[in-house]
């Protein structure tokens, strides 16, 4: 396998290529796959893009929390609608949308119905993984599986391939253990091992799950206790991108060939790790919600370059 620090040989740029991530936090991320390395750009930037479109793009949205109506955002449905409107204005349509969970706030039928109706307006294929808020029905997830579980295994995990990229949707919000973090469980991990066993190591991998698969802040439960086994399964692959939600803010990390990224919510922000008494919804002064959900651009070069983060508010 190519050493990540070696200068790229001709034609192998993809292994350590630039991952550029521009996010318009309130809506979603537009991911482009060029040469095997995903890159993301905020929707505002994507809408204004003059560069020719990448050969393959997809979009991530997360944490819609439809039904949430508390002071941090009394109209979570409205901000999801705004996000969808932004997506629909994109000149170059992404191939599909990935939703990384917490579609609903309380798993009520009405909440799922409302979310579905709005998301369907995008007119693109949708792929989901559940958040813990999507499994609160009396059947503890039956409702989610009835709606989104077709063709999935176990609690709703699955994989698929698009244009030479292997996508893996994992569920780490089921059967959580007292005192613990997110949990995948032995069955899912065994399946994952088998799922990637036959793949060439050169195939780019995109893993998505609700709770971060890496440990962001265990004091608030922001991590997955058996997430390391996922990374173990994927160690041999040259390009692995991990997309998560749950923490309603952008945090990124690169570790070897693995790039980790958490998306913001379309509903409400949450505090940075340890900066508040709890991870509960962060209330911002009236009129500033969309400022908080403004543009965040993060650009980094795998390897030696430091992270460069530029925040640009949507308003104000």
């Amino acid at each position, binding site marked *: 396998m190519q050493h990540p620090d070696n200068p790229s040989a001709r034609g192998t740029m993809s292994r350590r290529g630039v991952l550029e991530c521009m996010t318009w936090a309130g809506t979603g991320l537009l991911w482009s796959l060029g040469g095997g390395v995903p890159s993301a750009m905020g929707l505002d930037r994507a809408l204004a893009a003059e560069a020719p479109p990448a050969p393959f793009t997809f979009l991530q949205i997360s944490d819609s929390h439809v039904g949430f109506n*508390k*002071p*941090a955002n009394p109209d979570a449905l409205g901000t999801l609608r705004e996000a969808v409107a932004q997506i629909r204005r994109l000149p170059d349509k992404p191939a599909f949308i990935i939703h990384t969970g917490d579609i609903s*706030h*309380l*798993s009520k039928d009405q909440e799922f119905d409302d979310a579905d109706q709005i998301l369907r307006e995008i007119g693109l294929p949708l792929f989901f993984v559940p958040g*813990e*808020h999507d499994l*609160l029905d*009396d059947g503890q997830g039956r409702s989610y599986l009835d709606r989104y579980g077709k063709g999935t295994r176990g609690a709703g995990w699955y994989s698929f391939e698009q244009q030479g990229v292997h996508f893996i949707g994992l569920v780490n919000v089921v059967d*959580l*253990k*007292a*005192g*613990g*973090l997110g949990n995948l469980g032995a069955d899912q991990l065994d399946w994952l091992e088998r799922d990637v066993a036959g793949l060439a190591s050169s195939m780019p991998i995109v893993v998505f799950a609700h709770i971060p698969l890496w440990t962001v802040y*265990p*004091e*608030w*439960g922001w991590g997955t206790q058996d997430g390391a086994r996922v990374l173990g399964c994927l160690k041999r692959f040259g390009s692995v991108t991990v997309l998560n939600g749950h923490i309603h803010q952008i945090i990124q990390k690169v570790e070897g060939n693995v790039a980790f990224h958490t998306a913001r919510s379309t509903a409400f922000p949450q505090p940075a790790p340890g900066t508040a*008494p*709890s*991870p*509960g*919804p962060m209330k911002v002064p009236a009129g500033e919600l969309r400022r908080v959900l403004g543009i965040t651009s993060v650009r980094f070069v795998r390897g030696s370059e430091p992270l460069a983060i530029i925040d640009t508010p949507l308003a104000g």
Partner: protein
Amino acid sequence: MPSAQRLPRRLAGCGIAAIILQILAFTPATAAADRTLTDPVIIRIDNFTFAPQALTVAPGTRVTWVNGDDIPHTVVAQNKLFRSKTLDTDDRFTFTFQAPGEYAYFCSLHPHMTGTVVVKASTD
């Protein structure tokens, strides 16, 4: 409470009075901790924390959890004896503890939230 804070500012003799007051105040508090009564007890859920996190009650005590957060929580016994529905803001869940023992519980949505109820018969 405010008077206790003011005491040290007064004459030295009052310091002794303060100590005596503290001793007097301490005695009924100890009795309450034993919980010889089965008065209903409230456990608050605020800032993703159960408070009090550890609680000792007498058999037959009704314990009610109240969620004060903007985010739903649950109350689930680790031994599966009880499991609340999802508690949205201000929702409550009540369970009456009969058998003596130690009952560890947690929030199944946010499992880093844990608490314990100890059910102990009175020694009187």
